């Protein structure tokens, strides 16, 4: 259960947003909306624990975020593809898993990549993939890593219609199974409507 209380974010001297309050219960998701530059990415980064708010707090199951337990249950995918260009898609996935102290076998990594339409491209350095394909390498982590809370910043960018549907399905299943998600997107999100947080 993610609770956000009285969140205020300041950039330099300009306040981006003030007094943001909402909660995301298990089995639900939140859509953060607002015009460009209003601070959606900043809000998501604060939720993930990467940035600190000027005022207010974020709590996960009643405790302040940022601890090991929270990070274990969190998956954050930001704007950038978060993959190393010089490594292959497979290597990227395996190293990402190992960074959590876990193991991911080659077959399972290949399987995950194939689910995301990257069959035949697992052993190419990610440099050679298109922007959309790079994003999908990272999204493959949604399959290989258990996380209760998904924080996704513009996850549908650079994806084609099929991939958008696939990802939307994933999120829907995740939420249905009791997970939580917070999303931002410029495009319409093909999901059953969730909570809307307007910045």
């Amino acid at each position: 259960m993610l609770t956000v209380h009285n969140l205020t974010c300041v950039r330099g001297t300009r306040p981006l947003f003030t007094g943001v309050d909402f909660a995301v219960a298990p089995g639900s998701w939140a859509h953060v909306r607002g015009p460009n530059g209003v601070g959606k990415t900043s809000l998501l980064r604060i939720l993930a624990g990467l940035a600190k708010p000027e005022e207010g707090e974020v709590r996960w199951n009643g405790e302040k975020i940022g601890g090991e337990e929270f990070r274990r249950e969190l998956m954050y995918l930001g704007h950038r593809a978060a993959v190393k260009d010089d490594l292959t898609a497979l290597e990227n996935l395996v190293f990402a898993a190992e960074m959590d102290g876990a193991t991911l076998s080659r077959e399972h990594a290949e399987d995950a990549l194939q689910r995301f339409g990257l069959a035949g491209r697992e052993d190419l350095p990610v440099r050679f993939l298109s922007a959309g394909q790079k994003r999908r390498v990272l999204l493959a982590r949604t399959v290989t890593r258990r996380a209760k809370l998904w924080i996704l910043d513009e996850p549908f960018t650079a994806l084609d219609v099929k991939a958008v549907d696939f990802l939307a399905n994933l999120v829907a299943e995740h939420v249905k199974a009791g997970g939580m998600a917070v999303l931002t997107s410029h495009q319409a999100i093909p999901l059953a409507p969730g909570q809307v947080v307007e910045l």
Partner: protein
Amino acid sequence: MSSLRPPETARALGLAGTDAVLSEPQASPFKAMLSVLRRDLLLAMRRKAEVLTALFFFLIVSSLFPLGIGPEPALLRKIGPGVLWVGALLATMLGLQRMFYSDHLDGTLEQMVLSSAPLPLLVTGKVIAHWLVSGLPVVVLAPVLGLQFDLDPGALWILALGLLIGTPVLSLIGAVGAALTLGVRGGGALLSLLVLPLYIPTLIFGAGAVQAHLSGQGAGGHLSLLGALLALTLFFVPWATTAALRISLE
């Protein structure tokens, strides 16, 4: 931890043997550290040019001094240890930017900060990788270059030993600087300004060890001090770097 993928979901997604696909985070943070170490080494191997550039820089700089000062053997023997140590310092510094910058650019640094492994350990892994790529070659190359300065085998041995203990200190201290100047304007030059004053004790003890040996006093004291510096930095730097990284990512 309860599974979030009931069998129906898994089948819907076409995943067989779901529980096996999903990796179970184990309590093995050292494994995470080794993984980061391996990853960085792999990346360095794929960008050999970058790595070798620093090494060639060390070579060239060490040759510049005799060219600028004169080839007289007695003089060269005197300046040799100092010149080689300064060269090692500068070569290490050239590679410091590499430690966090590319990870910061492509977003993998954020993922590292958010991973459930302790960040200080991951940082240590990165520093070790940096040392293996930037520092260790210097340790191996320096005695060879020392021959250019007409140093005797005993002195070369002390030089190598001092560098072996000292170059990790340089990588460690440099890590703090690299983390602080991440994504900051004028990064490279600013990093040098921040880090070089902090390198001075290592330089003094390292070069001093060789000079002490040459003057017959024995290098034991200097080398122990270098060892103490290594212990001190090994203990404090991961925490300082972690704090600096979090600040830089805000």
